[in-house]
């Protein structure tokens, strides 16, 4: 089978990755802001006798000058790698702008296809493109697509094969000069002439959807207010919608699945350690983490909605007013908002920065922003120890942001001193994202969360369970290896109120994954507990679970539509199962100190490694030490003051 390497190239945010996702069935990250793709991505598909390898490159405005790392990736690939076909993606509503890059791509003299994406948007704006004329002028295939719905995307495959087989190369611009300035000028005139020749615009008098929304959303005063409201509702809905489902899953695992499997073990005559392993490592470990699937679902759903709507660039524009006072431009907001979803892609997103000092500065801000793994922890402990968990979670997010800003301020004044860089940004139009695409992205995140629970968390749980049972024949769990390790490192954490070995032991795997704290505590506490085999009436319990689920839907529905957080006031005394056990080993003071330590201390191993890879080894180690010291000092102050 022959392989055709087709490269997708175009201006940023023209829908290259969306087209690749449609063609290759992949789930690569998309968004409605320039700079979503910062590294080379690949996907493949088969057509006729060909394997078509689609290569998605970071967006680039011009090949004449490079200002950031992601642009360098595209440039290097186009000029030094092997590929057979170029797919130049054009954002049709802004065809005049995009054709400038096209003229530069013509000079590569490679077989090429021009893809007019977002044709539906162009038609709504009264823009008509004479495709046939464009084909005649450029002497290549020109196709129109809709990256949102996938319309016209399948036609790209026969076009790629035909362009490859017939080596359809575009027309060549005759420059008749070697002077760089004149060449650039000629390119500019060529692209302008081309656009004039093929584009017809109807005069539309009514304001566009983007113009109407922008009146409010980027208004210097109301815009900030809307931003706060949007962030408030994002977290309120995520929390209120998910808490009832999380509670139901917890009850379902503990009251139905657990006893059911125990009964199966008894029926099969399995040895007692099998049941013990199951209750500790599986139910106590992995099961406790899976309870948070609804929270992960809702937070990713809402963040994806924000990322794909086009609102993020507006936030960057608004925030530049404040961030530039700290020596940062508004573009730093992108990685910081991305960090709410996961710190790792946020660190990678700093590749779009032009200056290394700016990049390092934002990299040191990112780990203070809480990701969903930390939200899982906050929500677990906040609902357990605080009667008004929402305010505690809000306080922790805010505290993270404050220390993120303080750190950047400190570094800007010392090691990363430099003059404020300029701000240039393209504001894309607002787009209503397709629900199918949002669910696909959310499903991808959920899959990786479940996968992590089934692999990493499960392995950690097994390891902790083994440590709790070694050396063989121990009478008390605290005499086990896990107990000894926990007691040893307890010396460091004792001043911040965390001397209990069960807590300190759970801090070790937290460096691998934050949610491992809950699974580790689950394993330890269930191991300590006297095992009781609870017999249940399966029919009765199933009926109860179904009735509870109906109640849960009702609660989630009301929670979704209420303006005020429904989960604002909870009764910690109602805690059951693992939560009840944890509430016995921690006090309010200790819990707060614990949460602050986890908030400030470098988020996880993946963040550390990415910081090393994207920044430097020195940066990663220095930040690790800094965040540990800062977390310890803050937790100590909070513990002593309360």
């Amino acid at each position: 089978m022959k392989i055709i390497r087709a490269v997708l190239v175009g201006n940023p945010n023209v829908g290259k990755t969306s087209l690749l996702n449609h063609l290759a069935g992949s789930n690569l990250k998309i968004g409605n802001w320039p700079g979503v793709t910062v590294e080379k991505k690949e996907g493949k598909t088969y057509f006729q006798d060909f394997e078509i390898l689609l290569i998605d490159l970071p967006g680039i405005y011009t090949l004449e000058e490079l200002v950031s790392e992601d642009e360098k990736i595209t440039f290097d690939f186009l000029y030094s790698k092997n590929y057979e076909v170029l797919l130049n993606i054009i954002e049709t509503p802004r065809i005049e702008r995009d054709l400038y890059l096209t003229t530069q791509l013509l000079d590569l003299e490679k077989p090429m296809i021009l893809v007019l994406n977002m044709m539906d948007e162009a038609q709504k704006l009264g823009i008509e493109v004479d495709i046939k004329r464009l084909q005649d002028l450029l002497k290549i295939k020109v196709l129109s697509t809709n990256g949102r719905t996938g319309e016209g995307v399948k036609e790209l495959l026969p076009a790629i094969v035909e362009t490859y087989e017939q080596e359809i190369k575009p027309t060549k611009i005759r420059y008749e000069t070697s002077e760089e300035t004149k060449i650039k000028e000629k390119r500019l005139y060529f692209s302008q002439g081309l656009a004039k020749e093929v584009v017809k615009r109807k005069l539309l008098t009514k304001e566009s959807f983007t113009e109407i929304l922008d009146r409010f959303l980027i208004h210097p005063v109301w815009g900030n207010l809307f931003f706060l409201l949007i962030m408030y509702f994002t977290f309120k809905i995520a929390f209120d919608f998910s808490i009832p489902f999380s509670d139901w899953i917890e009850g379902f695992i503990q009251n139905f699945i657990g006893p059911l499997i125990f009964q199966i073990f008894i029926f099969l005559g399995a040895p007692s350690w099998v049941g013990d392993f199951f209750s500790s490592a599986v139910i106590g470990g992995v099961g406790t983490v899976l309870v948070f699937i609804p929270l992960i679902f809702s937070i990713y759903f809402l963040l994806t909605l924000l990322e794909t709507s086009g609102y993020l660039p507006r936030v960057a524009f608004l925030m530049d007013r404040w961030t530039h006072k700290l020596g940062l431009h508004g573009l730093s907001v992108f990685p910081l908002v991305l960090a709410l979803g996961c710190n790792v892609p946020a660190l990678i997103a700093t590749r779009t920065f032009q200056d290394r000092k700016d990049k390092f500065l934002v990299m040191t801000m990112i780990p203070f922003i809480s990701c969903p793994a930390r939200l899982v922890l906050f929500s677990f402990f906040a609902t357990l120890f605080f009667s008004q968990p929402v305010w505690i979670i809000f306080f922790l997010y805010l505290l993270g942001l404050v220390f993120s800003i303080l750190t950047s301020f400190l570094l800007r004044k010392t090691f990363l001193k430099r003059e404020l860089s300029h701000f240039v940004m393209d504001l894309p139009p607002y787009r209503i994202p397709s629900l199918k695409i949002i669910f696909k992205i959310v499903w991808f995140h959920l899959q990786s969360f479940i996968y992590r629970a089934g692999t990493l968390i499960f392995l950690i749980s097994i390891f902790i369970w083994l440590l709790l049972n070694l050396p063989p024949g121990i009478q008390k769990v605290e005499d086990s290896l896990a107990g000894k390790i926990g007691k040893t490192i307890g010396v460091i954490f004792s001043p911040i109120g965390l001397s209990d070995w069960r807590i300190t032991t759970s801090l070790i795997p937290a460096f691998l994954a934050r949610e491992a704290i809950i699974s580790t505590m689950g394993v330890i506490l269930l191991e300590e507990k006297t095992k009781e085999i609870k017999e249940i009436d399966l029919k009765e319990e199933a009926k109860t679970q179904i009735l509870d689920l109906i109640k849960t839907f009702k609660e989630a529905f009301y929670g979704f539509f209420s303006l005020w957080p429904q989960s604002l006031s909870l009764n910690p005394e109602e805690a059951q199962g693992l939560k009840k056990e944890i509430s016995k080993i921690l006090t309010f003071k200790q819990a707060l100190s614990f949460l602050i330590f986890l908030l400030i201390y470098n988020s996880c191993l993946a963040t550390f490694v990415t910081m090393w890879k994207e920044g430097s080894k020195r940066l990663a180690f220095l930040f690790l030490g800094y965040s540990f010291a800062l977390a310890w000092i803050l937790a100590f102050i909070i513990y002593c003051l309360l």
Partner: protein
Amino acid sequence: MLLSEARCGEKVRIKKLLGEEAILRKIEGMGLRKEMIFEIIQRCGRNILLKNGENRLAVSNDIAKKIEVELIEKGELPCKTSPCFEKTTKTKPKWRWCFLGKEE
């Protein structure tokens, strides 16, 4: 005149990009090119928001100082929908609502 001197609501034609810096070439790639007409739709903080058809660009003042423009249309009311703060003098910064109009 320079783009940094243009006020909200005004329409300007780009005459020249002053300099050979990489960022200016990038801006050109983003659509801010010679002979193109842009409307200043908002000035806020250190940034200017420009519009040309579907193209909306935000540029900071230091970049705007490197773009020579020609005023082709004055707005009826500068910043009519978007009040924002702007500096009126170089020596003594004085803050006021820019929709109140240019200080004589």
